[in-house]
């Protein structure tokens, strides 16, 4: 037994030494990267694939910090997991992409380590709406990426592109739509308010919200799928099974590039602009590495790479970016966006959720 262990150890160390030598000769950056590492949570699917391909390898090359990417689910699932894990002193990911509502919710338990903005060279160039602060002014999250939810359709079924969100209410589209299943990720109340009630300010009062719910109820007969999982709708949209709906502009753009017969349209009322922050779990010990990563991601050149390769909207001022007007237009639109009312999903969360569930299930 003793002999066996001894042999194993020596063999492993020989192997290790061999690998190390090969590493020094071939890829010095990877070897250095072993000392410093960072677990980064990004939305699974296309997003993670794009980050693994276009972002993480270059970051490791530039800083020597190895990145392990973790696929995180959208919605609040990841927030719940991070919170539960942090209570046990664990961090399934050090840095995560986190939606605005989830960032606000995480603030209430101090889930996010406040960030030292002096370490970000381009902090001053960030658009103010991409800096998420605790009530006392400490920075909880820095804009990671911004994206659009637009009106998508299958080009085989719809030869003409729809021009307005009102297409969802068109009786001709009975049983043809795929919409997100939750109030807080579909932002359909905001869409209703902008399309029929003059703007999202109409949702300030409970009366306005009730009106929006009533109007939204008219969409129900047209909806074939209320989806929680992106893959469920994407597949059906590509095949034409469910030919219209709301979906992410970037992912649809990537599907178009892959040759699928789909299109994404900015309706005349505006696309929905949502965004995610980089947030650092309080259970993480990789504070320096996390700051280095956010700093790296907030460079104008990286924001340009993201726009070109992943199709997301930059979080920095337009002036500092290296995007051509055509490139900028492909990830954004001149039409005024619909900005979600994140405040509603923390202040009136349960009331809205209950009304919403009764609306679609009942």
């Amino acid at each position, binding site marked *: 037994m003793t002999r066996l262990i001894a042999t194993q150890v020596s063999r492993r160390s020989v192997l290790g030494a061999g690998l190390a030598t090969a590493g020094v000769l071939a890829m010095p950056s990877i070897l250095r990267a072993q000392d410093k590492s960072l677990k980064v949570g990004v939305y699974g699917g296309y997003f993670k694939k794009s980050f693994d391909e276009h972002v993480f390898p270059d970051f490791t090359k530039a800083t020597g910090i190895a990145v392990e990417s973790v696929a995180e*689910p959208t*919605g*609040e*699932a990841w*927030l*719940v997991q991070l*919170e539960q894990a942090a209570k046990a002193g664990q961090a399934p990911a050090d840095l995560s992409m986190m939606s605005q509502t989830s960032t*606000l*919710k*995480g*603030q*209430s*338990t101090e889930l996010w380590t406040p960030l030292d903005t002096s370490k970000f060279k381009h902090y001053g160039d960030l658009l103010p709406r991409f800096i998420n602060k605790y009530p006392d002014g400490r920075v909880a999250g820095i804009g990671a990426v911004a994206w659009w939810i637009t009106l998508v359709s299958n080009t085989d079924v719809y030869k003409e592109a729809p021009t307005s969100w009102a297409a969802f209410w068109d009786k001709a589209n009975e049983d043809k739509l795929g919409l997100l*299943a*939750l109030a*807080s*990720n579909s932002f359909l109340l905001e869409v209703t308010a902008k399309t029929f009630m003059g703007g999202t300010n109409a949702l300030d009062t409970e009366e306005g919200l009730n009106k929006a719910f009533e109007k939204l109820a008219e969409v129900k007969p047209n909806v*074939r*799928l*209320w989806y*929680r999982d992106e893959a*469920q709708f994407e597949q*059906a949209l590509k*095949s*034409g*099974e469910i030919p219209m709906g709301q979906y992410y502009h970037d992912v649809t753009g990537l599907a178009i590039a892959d040759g699928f017969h789909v299109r994404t349209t900015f309706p005349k009322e505006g696309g929905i602009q949502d965004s995610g922050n980089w947030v650092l779990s309080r259970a993480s010990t990789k504070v320096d590495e996390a700051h280095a990563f956010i700093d790296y991601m907030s460079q104008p050149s990286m924001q340009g790479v993201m726009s070109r390769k992943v199709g997301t909207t930059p979080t920095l001022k337009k002036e500092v970016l290296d995007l051509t007007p055509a490139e900028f237009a492909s990830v954004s639109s001149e039409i005024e966006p619909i900005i979600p009312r994140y405040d509603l999903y*923390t*202040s*009136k*969360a*349960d009331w809205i*959720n*209950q009304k919403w*569930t*009764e609306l*679609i*299930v*009942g």
Partner: protein
Amino acid sequence: MRREAPKSFADYTPLLFPGVMLVVFFVVPFSTMIAVSFFKRNPAGFYTPDFVIDNYARFLTTFFAGVLGFSLMLAVLVAVCCVSIAFPFTYLLTKRSRRVQTLWLVGLLSVLSLSEVIIGFAWSTLFSQTAGITNLFVALGLMDKPVALLPTFGAVLAGMIYQALPYTILVLYPALVRLDPTLLEAARTLGASPVKAFFNVVTPALRNTIVATLIMVFVFALGSYLLPQILGRPRHWTLSVLITDQAIYQSNMPFAAAMAVFLVLISLALVGLTLLVGRRENAL
């Protein structure tokens, strides 16, 4: 063989391991859930330890009663369908040669290796308009044009029966294999047809097994939350879907826990009722 009643503490030691497992993996998590169901929900964040009954109060509405009723109905239907398909099937299977039986059982076991996600997406493709089985019917001249068979109640039911059937067969199999063949021979000698013997002798002899299997499939089907989402419309969503929504998407753990406790209590009550009725009938 006479079984000695356990006398000393040492005689109970074999129970220690399952006992500990039960405490660690059932009693502790379930107690935590009950505790959380009374915690106070903070809509802007998570929850704080407290003792409030708001979470239960919110559940007591006709809306949730409707969803609960649908979930129970669906689970009962899945259980009844599974057992009525699996019982005759398993009975016939036990009459085949050893080799045939092994092949079938291995096939059924391999179905168990599929996850709910794979089953859901496979059935959604099978039932789709663009790539589904109706295209095959059109090619065979049985239909004019392909149609979508989902989202429908039938699709949900089919998916859930498919998922639960292997378990049903594997639970029924040991009892049917061990069934005393002389019972059947006696029935046949006395002039019963094979069908009559099956219904009048085999089925009553295995009454308790059938009831136990029904309960197992019922409980299994009650927890399903993915298939109703993939194959059904929102009105086919089970209570488990809404529990997931609260726990995962609304981070409202107290309400999710309250709903889960309610679901467990109702299903325990139903199981208890079934056993009670069974015992009374046996006594007659």
